[in-house]
């Protein structure tokens, strides 16, 4: 089938079914899955060769893990080690044992039951993470715990798949033993070296050229290259990508990478869900509905229960334990790979449907995830409610974003930093950013007029945006877009001159400061002092001048763009008013000593 036609069908599914799924409150995942079922061999049979598509679509998962890595720097990852390895092992063994027992009861051989059970213990990173993102659980403690477990599963799946030929005992497999391990180690060292030492200079170089699509191309190249490398040494592509992401997490390019890869990740992940939907063999369900559905429900109930039981040991707070179980109760995409390997290794007689049955069970359990969560939310009335304070979103610390880190932004940033306020800084000059990095700022390369970048910098959660961009046009663009996309984000802005001041004020920014105004007033004060005026009085004159000047500019806001006659008249009037004001100030100062307290009324 022509590639174009295929692509058309996939996009059509995405455009039609996903919004529908979201509208019905089922989430995007289910929309994609149903789309997959519809266009797959079982129903419409619109596309064939689902397997090669599934392989391609795995890139979606790879990209997702890369981006998760981007949000976790080494320090954070290290902090999670106990949860990943301790908690991960507990989950894997407990759920694996429970599922193996189920399979034994179902009539499988011991070896098959162990392999199948462990495969069922794995959950779907793609579905769980996507769901967590949609429900804004990704930065909550439950989300973090769930993610640690998923991370461990990604690691554990590798030896599991390697173990199958041994357990199966049929085909000897192609065990390379020590050489394979060595290769794997080499690949990981390679990724670390490239991620740490090579990518940043290259990204910096590309950023300097200002060619945005080349930057995007390089981001994709990076992730694809890693995936390719990992596949060559038979390690998990996702794991490699995750590692690369972690290595770039503390770099200034993190947000730019994130926002550039976001749409690719979304679409490929969608494709991945579609391909999962396509593997759901409706024929098998129609043939043995009781068996399939019964096994699916039994499996889900068992895994849910087991997860609920161990949730406490994993440090999940009491109120969140069912949620935790619901998030990762489904079977995972790795199970497909395991079953495929098992089919070869166990030399099952032709016509044996055990493994395709298990495949369908896993796919169905994945499709059930949104429903389980809806059910959970109904039962526990979490819907629409905010997380309680202790479970509230872990903020990344930066509640202030500074857009533009030139002369003005730097002073603001340094001042805030010194006052203990951590700010995220965006600037489009990579040199500038490199200069500042050693001082421990959270600095990111990118153009703040891009809403996706602001989003990545946390604009949705930030309390304040400081627009310190020097170019009036860009600055106004940022303000306009932010007001549209984040109407609740408070803005403080630097104005280049009065015209820019007026424009920003008219865009609704309450606090605008002309960059040269205060400095000039201070110089004016110094001039007065040099001429013999005492400092206190010079300051008061500057205060009076400021007040009158700001009032004038505010009165003229609407007229600034087209200076009509009225504007000129008003401006003249304002100037006269200022002169009058000064006359009054001067007189009132001179009158001191003969009026009020300065005048002795008894005379």
């Amino acid at each position, binding site marked *: 089938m022509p590639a174009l036609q295929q692509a058309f069908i996939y996009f059509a599914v995405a455009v039609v079914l996903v919004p529908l799924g979201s509208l019905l409150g089922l989430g995007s995942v289910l929309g994609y899955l149903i789309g997959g079922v519809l266009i797959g061999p079982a129903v419409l049979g619109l596309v064939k060769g689902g397997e090669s598509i599934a392989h391609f679509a795995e890139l979606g998962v790879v990209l997702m893990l890369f981006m998760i890595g981007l949000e976790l720097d080494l320090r954070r990852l290290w902090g999670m080690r106990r949860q990943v390895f301790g908690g991960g092992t507990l989950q894997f063994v407990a759920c694996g044992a429970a599922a193996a027992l189920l399979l034994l009861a179902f009539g499988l051989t011991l070896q098959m039951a162990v392999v199948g059970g462990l495969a069922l213990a794995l959950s779907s990173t793609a579905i769980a993470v996507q769901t967590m993102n949609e429900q804004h659980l990704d930065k909550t403690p439950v989300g973090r715990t769930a993610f640690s477990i998923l991370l461990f599963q990604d690691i554990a799946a590798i030896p599991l798949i390697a173990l199958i030929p041994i357990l199966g005992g049929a085909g000897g497999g192609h065990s390379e033993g020590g050489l394979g391990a060595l290769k794997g180690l080499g690949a990981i060292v390679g990724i670390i070296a490239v991620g740490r030492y090579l990518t940043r200079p290259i990204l910096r170089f590309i950023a300097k050229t200002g060619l945005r699509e080349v930057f995007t191309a390089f981001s994709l190249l990076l992730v694809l290259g890693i995936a390719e490398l990992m596949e060559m040494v038979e390690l998990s592509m996702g794991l490699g990508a995750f590692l690369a992401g972690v290595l770039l997490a503390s770099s200034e390019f993190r947000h730019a990478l994130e926002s550039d890869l976001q749409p690719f990740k979304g679409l490929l992940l969608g494709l991945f869900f579609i391909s999962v939907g396509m593997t759901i063999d409706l024929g098998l369900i129609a043939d043995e509905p009781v068996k399939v559905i019964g096994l699916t429900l039994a499996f889900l109930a068992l895994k849910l229960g087991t997860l609920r039981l161990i949730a406490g040991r994993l440090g999940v707070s009491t109120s969140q334990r069912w949620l935790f179980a619901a998030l990762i109760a489904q079977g995972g995409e790795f199970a497909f790979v395991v079953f495929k390997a098992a089919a070869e290794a166990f030399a099952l007689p032709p016509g044996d449907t055990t493994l395709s049955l298990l495949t369908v069970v896993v796919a169905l359990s994945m499709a059930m995830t949104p429903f389980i969560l809806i059910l959970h939310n109904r039962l526990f009335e979490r819907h629409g409610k905010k997380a309680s304070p202790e479970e509230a979103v872990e903020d990344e610390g930066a509640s202030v974003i500074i857009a533009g880190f030139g002369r003005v932004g730097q002073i603001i940033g340094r001042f805030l930093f010194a006052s203990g306020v951590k700010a995220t800084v965006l600037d489009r000059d990579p040199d500038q950013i490199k200069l500042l990095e050693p001082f421990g700022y959270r600095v990111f390369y990118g153009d703040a007029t891009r809403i996706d970048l602001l989003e990545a910098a946390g604009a949705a959660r930030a309390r304040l945006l400081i627009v310190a961009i020097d170019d009036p046009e860009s600055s106004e663009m940022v303000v306009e877009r932010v007001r549209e996309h984040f109407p609740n984000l408070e803005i403080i802005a630097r104005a280049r001159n009065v015209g820019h001041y007026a424009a920003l004020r008219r865009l609704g920014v309450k606090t605008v400061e002309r960059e040269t105004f205060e400095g000039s007033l201070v110089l004016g004060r110094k001039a007065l002092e040099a001429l013999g005026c005492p*400092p*206190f*009085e010079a300051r008061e004159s500057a205060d009076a001048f400021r007040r009158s000047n700001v009032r004038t500019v505010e009165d003229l806001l609407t007229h600034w763009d087209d200076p009509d006659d009225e504007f000129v008249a008003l401006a003249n009037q304002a100037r006269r008013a200022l002169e009058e004001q000064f006359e009054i100030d001067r007189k009132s*100062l001179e009158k*001191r*000593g003969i009026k009020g307290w300065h005048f002795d009324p008894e*005379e």
Partner: protein
Amino acid sequence: MSHTVVIYAHPYPDRSRANRVLFDAVKSLPNVDARPICDLYPDFAIDVEAEQAALLRADLIVWQHPIYWYTVPAMLKLWWEKVLTHGWAYGDGARVLSGKRCLWVTTTGGDASAYDEGGMHAHPFSVYEPVVRQTARFCHMHWLEPLIIHGAHRMNDEQRAAYATLYRERLGAR
């Protein structure tokens, strides 16, 4: 030889008719650290460390200012609040100012009779004095007989010169 610091609070020093003459009379004496705080800190951003260091060097601390609304001008009040800190000037066994002498030099618009029982200010001036005196004493300073000059508006040059001389004498100069 004893060292003196003069904390002088006048927001409009060049319009002063009384305090300026007095301040000019003492500001360049040897061993006098003259600190016109309204000139030093026109934005009210008092350098507390510098002020405290100046106090530590002195044996005699002078507060000189016109009376505004029966008490010290806002600037000197703020200076008290910022400079005389807990754990340094008072409280917690702090005694850095202990034994230093404190001289209050102030001028009033009203003449002495305005501070009579039935005068326009209704109370003798001594009623307004304790706040300043107790501030000094609370910081363990030794309170000297203050130099209070009434009727500052109506002084003639001779009177001004006489007060200036008196002031210099109180600072130990001839």
